[in-house]
C-alpha cells in the first residue's frame, strides 16, 4: 500500500545542511497499523510529512497505492492535496472559525474530492456517528475539549476515505488516562475499517500496544522493524534495546556463533545468547548481550556458578508494587533485576544470577565514529542523548 525507497531529506539551518532522513526504505501492507517510533529529532515526523507531501524529500521514491507520488528519477511530485491521504496532527489543527460539521465538510466541498451536497452530508453524518460526535455537530470547535477536538480531527481525516491515514503524535497533548483510552479506540477502529495507518509516536508503551508493526528510528535511519513482541524479545540494535523497555546491556566480543546462538566473552564471563540471522556479527566483533531485568533468575545457593551464571551482591532494593526491583553489583557491572516479591533480599546479600540463553540476546552496538577505544567505551556505557 505504501512503499518508500532510499528516501533522503536534509534541512538547511543557517547555511549548513542537516540530514534528517538518510536513505530510508519501508514497505507497509494494506490494512496495516504501522508505527514510527523514536526519540525526538530522529526524523519520524519528517518521514510522515514527506509521505503527506508537506516536505519535499531530497531524493528517493514514495509510492502510495501503486501510484508514485514522489520520485527523483524521473522527476515526479504530487502535491499534498492530490495524494490519497488523511492526516491527524499533534495540535489537532481543527479550524477555529468553523463548527464541527463544517470542519469535516469543508475539504469534501472545496478540496479535490469535490463531492456534491447530498453525499457530503451523508459522509459527515457517518463519520460523526462512527466517532460519537453526533451531538456536537453544530458546536464551534473552540468550545470542545482536547479529546473532542482530536476526535473531530480524526473524523475529518476519515471522511476523506483516504488510502493511507497519517497520524503525527495525535495523543501526546492529552492527559494520560485519555491517551490510554483513545489509543485502544483508535486501534480497534482502524482494524474495523481496515485502513492502512502510519502512526508517529515517541512513546514506546503506546507503540507497543497500538502497532501491528513498529519501525524504530534514530538519526534519520530505521534501526529495526518488527512486530511489538519481536522488538521486545529480540532487539537487534543497541538503540532499540535502550529505547524499548528496560534491558541490561553487557558489553563483550563475539567468540563464535552456532546456528541461532552466539557465544560472547563479557565482563561476566562467557555468555551464550540468542542471535537471529539478522544480528549476525563476525567473531571478534564488539557486541552487547542484552537481558531484561525480569528474565534474570535470582538464586541464593553457594555452589560455583555454571554456564551463563554469575554471582553478585545486591546493592539497592525498591518495592514496585507487583514485584521488587534490585540493582546488583557483579564485578564492575551493575545489573538491574526484577523479581517476584516472595524473593525478598536485603542490600548486601550475595546472590547467584542465571541468564537463560533463550532470554539473552546478541545486540549490535551503535555505529561509532572512529575514535579512541577508551572514549568509545565510555560513550557506550552511558546511554547517549538523542541528537536533536
Amino acid at each position, binding site marked *: 500500500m505504501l512503499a518508500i525507497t532510499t528516501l533522503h531529506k536534509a534541512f538547511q539551518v543557517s547555511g549548513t545542511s542537516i540530514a534528517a532522513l538518510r536513505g530510508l526504505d519501508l514497505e507497509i501492507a494494506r490494512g496495516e497499523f504501522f508505527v514510527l517510533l523514536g526519540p525526538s529529532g530522529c526524523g519520524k515526523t519528517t518521514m510522515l510529512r514527506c509521505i503527506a507531501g*508537506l516536505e519535499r524529500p531530497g531524493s528517493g521514491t514514495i509510492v502510495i497505492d501503486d501510484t508514485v507520488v514522489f520520485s527523483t528519477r524521473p522527476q515526479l511530485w504530487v502535491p*499534498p492535496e492530490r*495524494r490519497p491521504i488523511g492526516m491527524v496532527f499533534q495540535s489537532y489543527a481543527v479550524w477555529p472559525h468553523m463548527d464541527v460539521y463544517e470542519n469535516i465538510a469543508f475539504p469534501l466541498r472545496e478540496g479535490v474530492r469535490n463531492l456534491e451536497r447530498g453525499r457530503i452530508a451523508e459522509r459527515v453524518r457517518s463519520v460523526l456517528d462512527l466517532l460519537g460526535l453526533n451531538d456536537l455537530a453544530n458546536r464551534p470547535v473552540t468550545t470542545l475539549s482536547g479529546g473532542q477536538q482530536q476526535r473531530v480531527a480524526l473524523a475529518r481525516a476519515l471522511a476523506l476515505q483516504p488510502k493511507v491515514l497519517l497520524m503525527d503524535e495525535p495523543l501526546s497533548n492529552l492527559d494520560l488516562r485519555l491517551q490510554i483510552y483513545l489509543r485502544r479506540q483508535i486501534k480497534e477502529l482502524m482494524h474495523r475499517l481496515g485502513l492502512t495507518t502510519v502512526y508517529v509516536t515517541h512513546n514506546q508503551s503506546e507503540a507497543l500496544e497500538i502497532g501491528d508493526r513498529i519501525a524504530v528510528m534514530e538519526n534519520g535511519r530505521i534501526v529495526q522493524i518488527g512486530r511489538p513482541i519481536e522488538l521486545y524479545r529480540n532487539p537487534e540494535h543497541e538503540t532499540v534495546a535502550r529505547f524499548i523497555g528496560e534491558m541490561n546491556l553487557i558489553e563483550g566480543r563475539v567468540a563464535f556463533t552456532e546456528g541461532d546462538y552466539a557465544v560472547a566473552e563479557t565482563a561476566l564471563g562467557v555468555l551464550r545468547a540468542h542471535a537471529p540471522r539478522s544480528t549476525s556479527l563476525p567473531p571478534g566483533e564488539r557486541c552487547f548481550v542484552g537481558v531484561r531485568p525480569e528474565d534474570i533468575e535470582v538464586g541464593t545457593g553457594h555452589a560455583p556458578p555454571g554456564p551463563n551464571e554469575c554471582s553478585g551482591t545486591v546493592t539497592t532494593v525498591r518495592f514496585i508494587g507487583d514485584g521488587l526491583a534490585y540493582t546488583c553489583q557483579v564485578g564492575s557491572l551493575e545489573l538491574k533485576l526484577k523479581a517476584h516479591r516472595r524473593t525478598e533480599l536485603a542490600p548486601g546479600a550475595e546472590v547467584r544470577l542465571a541468564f537463560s540463553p533463550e532470554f539473552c540476546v546478541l545486540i549490535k552496538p551503535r555505529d561509532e565514529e572512529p575514535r579512541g577505544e577508551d572514549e568509545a567505551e565510555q560513550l557506550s556505557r552511558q546511554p547517549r542523548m538523542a541528537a536533536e
Partner: protein
Amino acid sequence: MAVHERNDTSSGGPGGIALVYGLALLGLASVAVSLLGNILASFSDRADIGHFTLLNYGELLGEHGLGDVTLRTLMLGVGSVSMMLFFGFPIAWILSRTDFAWKRMTIGVLVAKLAIPGFITAMSYVWLLNPTSGLVNRMFGATALGAEPVFNIYGLGWICLLQGAVLVPACVFLMLPAFQHLDATLEEAAWVSGVSPARTIRRVVLPLLAPAVLGAAMFFFVISVETFDIVGLIGLPGGIKVLSVWIYDAMHPAIGMPDYGFAAAVGILLFLMSAVAIGFYIYFVRRSERYAVVAGKGRSSPPQSLGLWRWPALAFVCGWAFIAFVLPLVTLIWVALVPYLQVPSSAALKTLSLTSFNFALSYIGTPLLNTSIVAAGAILLALTWGASISWVVTRSGTRTGLWLDTAVFLSPAVPSMVAAVAFQYLGIALYRWLPIYGTIWLISLAIGTRLLAFCTRTINAASWQIHRQLDEAAYVSGVSRLKTFRYIYLPIIAPSLFYSSAMVGLLSVRELTVPLIIDAGKAPVVSTLVFQLQTNGNHNVAAAVAIYMIALLVALVFIASRLSGADRPAQSRRQAQGRSAERREPVPLLAAE
C-alpha cells in the same frame, strides 16, 4: 523539532497560489518605487524627463543656506522627539507602573487625540498665537501698532512643542508594552540585594527600558522630519526653512513647472537622515526584544503607589491634554462659530452662527468624495498587499519571505514627502500609458504604499500566532493552496485585517503630506481643502471643515479602537501554541502619524 519550524519549505507546485506571490511582489514593487522613483527623479533633467544629469545635486550643493536648513531639520527632529518624550515618557510610566486612578480616562484622551490631526492642531495654534492677529496676543492688546506680540507662533520651538505634543499618543502606545512587560523580579532582585528603590530605578529599570524608549525616539525622529502637518501650517508661512519646506517649494513654485529633480535631490538628503535613524531604530528594537525574552517568564511589577504624587501626575496629564486636545478643539469650535477671528467677549457671543458650517458644506462635497475614494483605495491596496506579503513571510517558509519582510520593514525610512515625489515623478513618466498623474488614484497608491509596513506588522503578528498546521490540515485534506489562503488563512487572521483596515482608513483620511505634494489642483481631499482654506485666510470655514473632518475621524477612531480590542480572539489564541513568545513583533500601533 525546531528544524522543521524554520525550514518547512513550501511544498507543492505554486498553482493558484502564484496569485498571492504576485500580489506580494506588486506590494514590494510599490515600496521600491517610493525610493527608486525618487532616486531616478533626482538624476532627471528638469526640462526633459528621461534625460539624466547630475545638475540637481549641483544645484542642491550650491543652494544658499543648505547647511543651515539641514541643521534646522535635525533640530526639528531632535526637538520634536524631546518634547514628545517630555510628555510621553512620564505618561507611559504613570500608565504602566503606578496606581494612577485615572488610567482609563488618560487612555481615552490619548485615543481621542488621534481624531485631531497635527495640521488641525497647528492651525488652531496659528489662530491663537500668530503675532499679527492671534487671539491670545489680542487679549493682551499686543497686536496694536508698534506693540511687541506676547507670543509668536512662527518659531522652530513652537513647531517642536506642537509636533511633540501631537506624537504623544503614538509614542505612548509604542512604548507601553515594553514598560508593562518589564520583569518585576529584576527590580526585586536589586532590592533584596540592598539597593534602594530610587537607585534601582536609575540603575536597573531605566537601562532596561532604554532600548524601547530610544527605539521610539528614532522612529518618531523620522516622522518628525518628514511630516508636513505642523511645518506646513507654521513653518511655511513663518519662513522657517527645513528640508520638507524646500521639497514643498520645489513642487509648488509660484511660477512655472514643479522642479522634480531638485525636490528629489533634497529628498535623498532627507532619506539619508531618516535611514540612519531607522538603522538605530532596528538596533534598539533588537535590543529591547532581547530584554523582552528575559521578561517573558516573569510577572509585571506591582503598581507603585503614587500617594500624594497623584495630584501632580494628574496635573501633568491634564496639562498635556489641554495643550494637545482641549485648547485646539475649543479654538476650532469658537472660530467655526464666529464670522471672523475675534477674541471671546459678550459682543462676540452675539455674532455666533452656523454660517461657516453651511459654507463648509458647499466646499466639502468633492473633497469628501475624493477622501473616501483615497481611503478606500489605500485600504484595498495596503490590505491586499499586506495579507499577501504576510502569507509569504509567515507561511511560505522561503527565503523570499525573509527578504520581503525586511524590505517592507525598512520602508518607513523613506519619508512621505520623498515617496510622494517619487510617485508623482512616476505618474509623469508613465502618463502616456497610465494617466494617473496628479489624481486621487495616485494619492491612494502612495498612501497605500506608505501604510503597507504598518499593515504587514499587524498582520504578521496575528499570523505568527496561528499554528501553521491549520493550513497543512487543509492541504492534506485535498484543499488547494489558494483555497486554503481564502477559506482558512484569511478568515482566521480576519480580526487583524479589520483592525488594519480601520487604521489605514483613519490614517489616510488624516494624511496631508502626500496629497499636498501629489495634488496638482485636480484632486482636492478634505485635508488639502482645510490647508487651502487656511492658506487663503478663510479661517472660519477652515475651522468648520476641520470639525466635519474630526467627526468623521472620531467614527473611525471608535471603530479602530473597538477592533483593536478584538485583535486576538480567544479562538485563535487557543491555536497559538506558544508561538507568540517566539515572534513578538514591535507593532508601531497607531504610530504612523
